[in-house]
C-alpha cells in the first residue's frame, strides 16, 4: 500500500469517531501482486525497479545517441550528471586512473537515486530501496566487483593477504587482529553498505506515512484541526528532508563503492 492507500483505508476514521489511529506498519511494505507468473509475483517494487532501469537506460541512450562536440539539450544534462559523479565521487577516491569505472558508478548512482526519489513522486510514493532485497542485490554486485578487481590487480594470495593483515600493526598482535580485518572487509563492509541505504529509505518512508496518516486522522472540526495542520507542516518538512536524503544515500552508496574499489586497486592502504 502507498500513502494514498493508507489514507483511503483509514477512510472516515477521524479523531473522536471511535476507531483508533491507523498506524503504518510492516503491512504497508507488502504489496498485492499486479500479476503472477506461476509462483512468481510481479509487484509494485519490481515494477519500480524495471522503471528506474528503463529511465536510466533510455535517458543516457537518447542523450548520447548522436553526440555533438558542443552539447545541447539532453546531452548537456547527461554530461552534467556524469561530470558530477566523476568529480564529486570518482576522482576524490580513485583519482584519474579510476575513470574506467565511471560507467559503473554513473549507472549505480542514477539507478539508486531514481529508485529513492520515487518515494516523493505522486502517484508512486514508494522507494523500491526500502525493500531489503534491492540494496542487498546492489551490494552483492558491488562486492563481487571489488573482490574480483582486487584479485585481478593484486593476485588472489596478495589480495587476501592485504585484506587479512592490517597496516601498521606490530607482528605479535596480528593473530588477534587479522580475523577482525578479514571479517570487516569481507562481511561487515557489504552488510553495512546495504543496511545503510535500506534503513534510511525505510525510515523516511515510515515518517512520511505516519505524518500523512496523522494529518488525515486528526482532520476534524475540533481541536484536532490544529494538530492536523501541524502534522501537515511536518509532512512538508520531511518531504524536503527526504529530497536531500534520497540524493545523499545514492551519493554515499556510490562513494563507498568507489572507496572499496580503490582499496582493491592499491596494495597499500
Amino acid at each position: 500500500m502507498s500513502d494514498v492507500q493508507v489514507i483511503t483505508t483509514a477512510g472516515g476514521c477521524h479523531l473522536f469517531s471511535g476507531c483508533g489511529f491507523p498506524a503504518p506498519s510492516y503491512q504497508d511494505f507488502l504489496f498485492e501482486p499486479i500479476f503472477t507468473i506461476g509462483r512468481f509475483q510481479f509487484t509494485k517494487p519490481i515494477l519500480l525497479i524495471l522503471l528506474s532501469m528503463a529511465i536510466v537506460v533510455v535517458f543516457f541512450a537518447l542523450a548520447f545517441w548522436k553526440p555533438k562536440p558542443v552539447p545541447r539539450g539532453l546531452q548537456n544534462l547527461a554530461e552534467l550528471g556524469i561530470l558530477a559523479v566523476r568529480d564529486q565521487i570518482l576522482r576524490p577516491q580513485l583519482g584519474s586512473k579510476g575513470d574506467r569505472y565511471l560507467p559503473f558508478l554513473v549507472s549505480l548512482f542514477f539507478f539508486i537515486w531514481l529508485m529513492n526519489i520515487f518515494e516523493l513522486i505522486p502517484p508512486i510514493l514508494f522507494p523500491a530501496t526500502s525493500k531489503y532485497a534491492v540494496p542487498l542485490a546492489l551490494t552483492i554486485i558491488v562486492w563481487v566487483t571489488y573482490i574480483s578487481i582486487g584479485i585481478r590487480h593484486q593476485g588472489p594470495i596478495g589480495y587476501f593477504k592485504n585484506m587479512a593483515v592490517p597496516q601498521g600493526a606490530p607482528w605479535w598482535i596480528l593473530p588477534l587482529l587479522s580475523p577482525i580485518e578479514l571479517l570487516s572487509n569481507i562481511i561487515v563492509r557489504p552488510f553495512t553498505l546495504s543496511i545503510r541505504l535500506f534503513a534510511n529509505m525505510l525510515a523516511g518512508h515510515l515518517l512520511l506515512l505516519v505524518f500523512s496518516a496523522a494529518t488525515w486522522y486528526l482532520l476534524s472540526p475540533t481541536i484536532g484541526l490544529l494538530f492536523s495542520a501541524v502534522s501537515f507542516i511536518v509532512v512538508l518538512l520531511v518531504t524536503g528532508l527526504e529530497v536531500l536524503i534520497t540524493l545523499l544515500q545514492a551519493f554515499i552508496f556510490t562513494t563507498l563503492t568507489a572507496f572499496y574499489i580503490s582499496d582493491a586497486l592499491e596494495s597499500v592502504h
Partner: protein
Amino acid sequence: MSAPGAGRDGKYRPPPPREGTGWAIVSYLIGGMALYGGIGWLIGRWTHIAVLFPIGLLLGMGLALAMIIFRFARQ
C-alpha cells in the same frame, strides 16, 4: 610549488581523511565485537561460563580500537 601536505604558511598539514575512513572505523568496531563476542558466547555456552560473552565483547572492542589506532592514528 610547495611540498605536498604543506599549508599556506609552510607548516605540515595532515591530508584530510578520505570519506571511507569513518565507515571503515565503524566496520572495525562492529567486526571486532561480533567476532570476539561471538567466540566468547560460543565458548561460554560450551563451558557454561556465561561471563565469557561480555569478556569477548570487551576484548573485541579493545582489539578493534587498537587496530583503528594502528591504522589511522599513527600515519
